[in-house]
């Protein structure tokens, strides 16, 4: 089929990149935004624009709030008919469900405290004994006051899930599409190295003075090669993260009996009860347990604060409290769990040092999820993600330009989809931020409106690109890239101005007068985006005019009768 191995690898690289590159573009772009997803949440929900705090008092702040929480109405309506054993009679009313588990989570990047209750079903159906109904709340850690939870957390609940699931939850299809794209990314990286003959000699090569086709390929090679470890490890660790839970969930399917058995064995070995005793017991001071946990971590030469806590079997003699250290100084996720008997506060079990396998898994997962507090490394991650976007975009552009020159059918359509996946996606993102600031906060269903604006803007970008790409058939540069760059600049500046008008938080204030970096950082990023978009639009405009001039000058002119005589 192909005359050489290299040519066959080039075919694989081209088609894997082209077919799934659109998905990878979404993954890399929203992945880059997700580095600062909590900061975007602060921008989008002005009521939460305050500084992060450590875990507050459980006894005086968190517990009183949790005791007011009731089971979520939607989750109750959806789950209760499935979880309740109909032979036991009528379903327990939502308000009468009893708490089985309390949990609380805080991070250095998120000033709000995420916490909640898991309610047990008194008469569970067979096989549903372990299932619970949720009741989650968001608290101001300074006061314990419950914050409104109906506002869409645009960063952590939209951009971040877009990155790993395309916000397409039906049958987890989005997860599998992203997983397939990650596999294709690994293949594209390896085949790219194979087909790039002069990998080391051209490692730093970028020749902006060459023809656009050559320069595009230089940029594609550069952005792919200099960040090759980043691209490879993020595609790989992305697959590792979901390998056991989504792609191959054997512990909850074919190995379920073994999993349940192991759960009981671990409970026996650690002394952490797997089930309730059915005997009521009080809850001792969790604040004292937190102080003891901090003391033990410091004694192990890893001082830190509580990042995550769980109270199991609430109100029962078998109740125990698990405290996990906030790993903001580590690549690996929270760990070093210490477990206390809830009724007395005595330590039952300390998690032992991890096995090599578990430690490696936690490192790889933590490397990708980046919960750590290291601002330089976070910004370097954004750089890596954006380089991935550049690599994919230049791959599209190179493909389309090559085929347009060869006058291949379909190149116009591919270019239109490429425009939609690149500039269209950025437009949709910015339109959502503008809508967030323009729509009134008390608007019913504001979250749905914001999502509607996002998808609508993206569809409009596609329609615009399809309409303007007709010129690709005439081999002229399609103006949709340039026009959408201008729209990006307009939307980005509009978002900054809308934030100022709606909240009073302009850049002078957030940078100098009352410094608040989450909002200032996003405003600055928006302005830089606008500047880059305008510069790109101008460069494309110059290139388009030059191309038109070349085309005009290359048209042969018929000699005028009598000229030259």
């Amino acid at each position: 089929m192909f005359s050489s191995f290299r040519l066959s690898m080039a075919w694989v690289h081209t088609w894997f990149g082209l077919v799934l590159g659109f998905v990878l573009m979404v993954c890399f772009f929203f992945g880059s935004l997700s580095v600062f997803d909590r900061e975007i949440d602060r921008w989008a929900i002005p009521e939460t624009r305050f500084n992060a705090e450590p875990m507050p008092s459980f006894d005086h702040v968190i517990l009183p709030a949790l005791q007011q929480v009731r089971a979520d109405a939607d989750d109750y309506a959806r789950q209760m008919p499935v979880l309740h054993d109909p032979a036991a009679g009528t379903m327990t009313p939502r308000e009468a469900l009893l708490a089985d588990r309390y949990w609380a989570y805080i991070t250095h990047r998120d000033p709000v405290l995420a916490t909640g209750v898991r309610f047990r079903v008194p008469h569970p159906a067979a096989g549903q004994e372990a299932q619970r109904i949720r009741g989650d709340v968001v608290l101001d850690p300074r006061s314990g006051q419950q914050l409104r939870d109906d506002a869409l957390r645009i960063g952590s609940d939209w951009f971040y899930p877009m990155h790993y699931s395309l916000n397409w939850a039906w049958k987890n299809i989005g997860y599998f599409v992203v997983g397939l794209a990650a596999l294709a990314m690994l293949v594209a990286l390896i085949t790219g190295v194979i087909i790039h003959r002069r990998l080391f000699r051209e490692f730093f090569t970028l020749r902006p003075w060459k023809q656009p086709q050559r320069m595009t390929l230089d940029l594609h090679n550069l952005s792919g090669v200099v960040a090759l470890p980043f691209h490879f490890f993020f595609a790989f660790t992305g697959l590792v993260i979901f390998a056991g839970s989504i792609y191959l969930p054997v512990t909850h399917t074919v190995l379920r009996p073994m999993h349940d058995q192991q759960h009981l064995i671990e409970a026996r070995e650690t002394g952490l009860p797997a089930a309730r005793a059915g005997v009521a017991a009080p809850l001792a001071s969790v604040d004292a347990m937190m102080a003891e946990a901090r003391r033990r971590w410091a004694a192990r030469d890893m001082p830190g604060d509580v990042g995550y806590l769980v109270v199991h079997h609430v109100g029962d003699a078998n109740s125990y409290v698990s405290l996990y250290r906030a790993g903001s100084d580590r690549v690996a996720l929270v760990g070093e769990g210490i477990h206390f008997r809830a009724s007395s506060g005595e330590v039952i079990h300390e998690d032992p040092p991890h096995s090599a396998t578990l430690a490696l898994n936690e490192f790889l997962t933590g490397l990708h999820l980046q919960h750590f507090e290291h601002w330089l490394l976070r910004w370097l991650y954004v750089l890596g993600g954006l380089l991935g976007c550049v690599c994919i975009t230049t791959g599209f552009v190179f493909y389309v330009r090559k085929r347009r020159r060869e006058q291949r059918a379909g190149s116009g359509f591919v270019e239109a989809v490429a425009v939609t996946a690149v500039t269209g996606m950025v437009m949709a993102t910015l339109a959502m931020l503008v809508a967030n600031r323009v729509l009134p906060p008390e608007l019913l269903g504001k979250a749905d409106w914001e999502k509607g604006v996002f998808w609508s803007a993206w569809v409009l970008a596609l329609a615009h690109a399809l309409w303007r790409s007709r010129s690709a058939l005439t081999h002229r540069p399609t103006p949709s890239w340039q026009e959408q760059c201008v729209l990006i600049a307009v939307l980005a500046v509009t978002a900054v101005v809308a934030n100022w008008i709606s909240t009073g938080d302009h850049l002078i204030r957030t940078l100098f007068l009352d410094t608040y970096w989450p909002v200032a950082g996003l405003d600055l990023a928006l302005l830089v985006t606008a500047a880059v978009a305008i510069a790109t639009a101008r460069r494309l405009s110059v290139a388009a005019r030059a191309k038109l001039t070349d085309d005009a000058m290359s048209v042969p002119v018929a000699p005028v009768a009598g000229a030259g005589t």
Partner: protein
Amino acid sequence: MSASLWLLLAGICSLIGIVWLALSLPSHAQQARRGATLPTGRQYRLRQYRGGVALVLAGVACLQADHPGMALLVWIMLQVLAALSVSSVLAWRPRVLKLFVR
């Protein structure tokens, strides 16, 4: 020395190391200093050696700033930033690097 200063030192060492590695390639050495005679094989190896040493020093500085797991990631990503910066300089202002080419 504070962690920030160690990281700054790591960034500088990374940049210098990548410059040396880039200029060990004949095409880039000629970009930086037009008209210069092509360096000998020994000079190229010397630049590669200097580049390698600078990158190792950058790694040591990263280890002074953070624990090993974090330091490894910072070190790798600093090379990415340095390589991108040097490529951009070679593309638009190559003569800035002529001091490294004798």
